[in-house]
Every structure is written in C-alpha cells, then in structure tokens.
C-alpha cells in the first residue's frame, strides 16, 4: 500500500505549510541549541544537514531531563498528570535520516513493545508521525550499511521523502503516513517510471559513497568469547566521558533522582551512561564493572550482542556520531574490525 507521489520544488513549501497548519511540526533548524530540533513555524526554517544532524532525535522522545512526577513533601501527594492529547491531533517530526528513524524504532523496542510500557515515551511516540529524508550524500563517518540499515531504509518512518533535482518523491510507508499525506488535502500525481529511475540512480550513487566499515557476519560468535584479550587494548585510550552514549540515538540508559526545594519536589529521569564509573556501583562498594575495560565491553556487547539475544536486532544504526565526537578518536568501526579480525 506504499504510494510514491511527486511534488515539484515550487509546491514543496506549500506541502510543508499545509502540514504546519494542521499539526505541530518539529524539525532541525539553525537555532535548536542543544535540543537538535525546534518548533517549525515556516517551511524555510527547516535546515537539512548533509548526512546526519549534530544531534539524534532521541531527545524528542526521550529527553535528557524529564519530570516523572512532582510531589508535595508535606501531604505526600503525587501529581503525575501525563498530558493526554485529544485523539486525531498529533505532532510531526520531520528531517530525520533513515538511520535516526531506525533508531527511534529500536528505542520503541525498549520503551513501548514490552508489556510494562514507559508511559512518557509511549505517549509522545504514539502521537508523533515521523517524516524522514533519504540520504543522498552520506558522510565519511556513516556506516549504516554495515549494520543492516541503508540510505533509503524506511524502518521507523511514516513518510520518506527523496530529494531529486527539481522535485521530491514522497513515499508513504505506513498507514499513518498515508493519512498524513491525504490529510493535507493536496493533490499529488503518482511518481512516473522516470521519477523512480532517477530515485534509484540517486540511491545507488549514495550507496557507492558508503565504504563497508566491517562485516557483522561472524561478529556474534566472536563476541561470545567474553574474556577475549582484545578488550584490554580496545579500551586503553578511552577517557570514560559519556559523549558516545549521549550522542548515540539508541542509547537509552537513564537515572532516576529526586530534586526537592522546600516542601515541593519532583522525581526526574536524566540520561545516564554505562561508561561512568558509578553506573553500577553497589551501596556495599562492590562494582561489577570497576574499570573502563568492563564498561567499554558492556557498551559494545549491549549494542552488538545482548540486543541480538534480547530483541534479535542490533542497537547500532551506523550514524557515526560516536566516531565524530569522541575526544580521543576511538573509532567504533576500528573496534568492531579488530574484534571480527581477532583470532
């Protein structure tokens, strides 16, 4: 039921304006601070980055700081009013690349799929539609194809848009995407054979720019050897900051703490990182992961081995943000290569 329709450049802004009019649209712009997205009022505001944006859109569904509930210490009354939005009204998150859209789908695996849902994430996720843009110019640090994603992957997106020379192909992926497009009331003519051919050509060009970083074929049995010697070398130059986990679109670890001020207080959830030394410190002083070797091993194993056993999917989308931002240039691709090539 996926439908390819075409919008010429001159009509694209009108298409966006209709979306903005009917829904609250969020996307990357010039002044989105450390959020990575802002409320879009006019189509010109949307600024697509070449390759992946600075920040993943994890922050939209799983913010770095989130109030679980507030309470009054005197009366012990808890106010967890979760703002339910009325049905039919939903937000639009636009401007994701396919890897970020896949990352949102992977986060759903943790927060929404299991029977105990995370109500905060689930609420926001259920009322948000994702419009992604296919990646026609991957960066040198992108390695989505090595982990089973691709510059034109549709997983996690409701609508995917291909940017051709003088027109856009809008492809509705999910039923919600279909309603979204019809909801604009705009007339779209179907994509012709020529449009599709140009799209395919653009995508093969994009894929040709992607160099294969590593192969995951025999990664599973290599990672089964938990006490392999290479872990000691791999972690040596890591300085244990949290950049790679905070920028990773699929990292979902968090801490729960209480803030109080006078008799008012709130229980908040903030991002946490397995790379921090106190992440697993027991009150008795015992720490199952005392040095950065265990922590680095946990980060790699969780994304490439444990997630396979838990969800049958890898928790890495190949966006390369951990490679770009690491202060000591500890390159995840080199780490995986070293593991797969280890005897």
């Amino acid at each position, binding site marked *: 039921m996926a439908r390819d329709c075409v919008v010429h450049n001159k009509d694209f802004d009108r298409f966006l304006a209709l979306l903005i009019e009917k829904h609250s649209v969020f996307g990357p712009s010039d002044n989105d601070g450390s959020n990575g997205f802002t409320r879009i009022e006019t189509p010109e505001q949307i600024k697509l980055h070449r390759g992946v944006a600075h920040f993943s859109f994890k922050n939209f569904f799983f*913010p770095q700081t989130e109030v679980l509930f507030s309470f009054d210490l005197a009366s012990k009354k808890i106010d967890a009013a979760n703002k339910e939005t009325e049905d039919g009204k939903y937000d639009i998150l636009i401007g994701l690349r396919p890897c970020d859209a896949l990352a949102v789908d992977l986060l759903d695996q943790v927060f929404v799929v299991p029977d105990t849902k995370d109500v905060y994430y689930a609420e926001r996720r259920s009322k948000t539609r994702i419009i992604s843009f296919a990646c026609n110019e991957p960066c040198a640090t992108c390695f989505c194809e090595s982990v089973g994603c691709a510059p034109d992957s549709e997983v996690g997106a409701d609508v995917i848009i291909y940017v051709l020379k003088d027109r856009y192909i809008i492809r509705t992926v999910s039923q919600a995407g279909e309603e979204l497009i019809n909801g604009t009331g705009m007339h779209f003519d179907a994509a012709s054979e020529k449009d599709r051919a140009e799209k395919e050509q653009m995508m093969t060009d994009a894929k040709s720019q992607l160099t294969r970083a590593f192969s995951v074929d025999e990664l599973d049995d290599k990672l089964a050897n938990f006490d392999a010697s290479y872990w000691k070398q791999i972690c040596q130059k890591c300085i244990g900051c949290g950049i790679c986990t905070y920028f990773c679109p699929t990292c979902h670890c968090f801490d729960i703490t209480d803030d109080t*001020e006078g008799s008012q207080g709130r229980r*908040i959830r903030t991002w946490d990182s397995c790379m921090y030394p106190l992440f697993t410190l027991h009150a008795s002083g015992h720490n199952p992961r005392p040095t950065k070797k265990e922590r680095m091993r946990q980060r790699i194993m969780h994304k490439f081995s444990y997630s396979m056993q838990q969800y049958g999917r890898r928790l890495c989308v190949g966006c390369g943000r951990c490679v770009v931002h690491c202060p000591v240039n500890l390159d995840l691709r080199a780490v995986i290569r070293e593991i797969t090539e280890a005897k």
Partner: protein
Amino acid sequence: MNEENRAQPFEPKIIAFLCNWCSYAGADLAGVSRFQYSTNIRVIKVPCSGRINPLYIIKALYSGVDGVLVSGCHPGDCHYISGNYFARRKFALVKRFLEYIGIEPERIQFSWVSAAEGVRFAQIIDKVTSEIRKLGPLTYFRRDTGQKGT
C-alpha cells in the same frame, strides 16, 4: 511568591559561615551586648574559615540564598595558626571568578572579625545586608525547576 510575600519589601536571605573561635564569638558578643543588627543572616558555625570549601558557597547560591558571608579570625589570630591564611587565597580566587562570570561582587563577601569586635560585627552585617538588599533577589543562579528538559 504568593500574595502577601510580594507585598512586603524584599528581605535578602544571607548565609553567614562564622568561624567558631573569633567571628562566632564576635557575633555572640554583639548579641550579649544587645547590639541591634540585621536579622537576614543565617549563621553556620564552622571550626575555621579555612574549612570553607568553595563548593559550599556555590551550594548556598544554588539553594536559593541571595548572598554569602564568610567570616574568620584576623590573620595571625587563627586558632589553627594558618587556617585563615589558606582561606584568604581561596577567597581571593572565588571572589574574582564569580565576579568575572557576572555575579554581583557584593553577594559574596569575606571578613575578619575577632571575638572582641562585637560592634564591628554588627556593622559589617548591616553593611553586607544593605548592599545585598539593594541588589534584589538572586534569581539567575538559583536552582530553577523550569522544565528545560521536556
């Protein structure tokens, strides 16, 4: 700030770290001698001005007070000989840094008050309080429960 709070004029909340041997004794003397001075200070007694870690000053500003005073023995009088000398270096750097990043210098004050200077203690407290009262509440460093995250 509910209704009746807004109606009253602003009265600053000031944390005063007083060293147990001199400044606290000076404060005690001021009290015993019935010297009137502003009641805005909340006294925290510490063994020595050298005990004050800049972290405590920042924690005070973060927790919603409008000013911090740290008072100890005059150099040379320290019960622990060199506590206030070490403190003086820390205070110089804390004062310079907080002023540099844009916090009004009057909000963080340091003083030497000996056990015999009851009058002087009362005068310093009044001076510090009036200076901070003029500045108004310290809102921009206080713990905001604003939901920037959501």
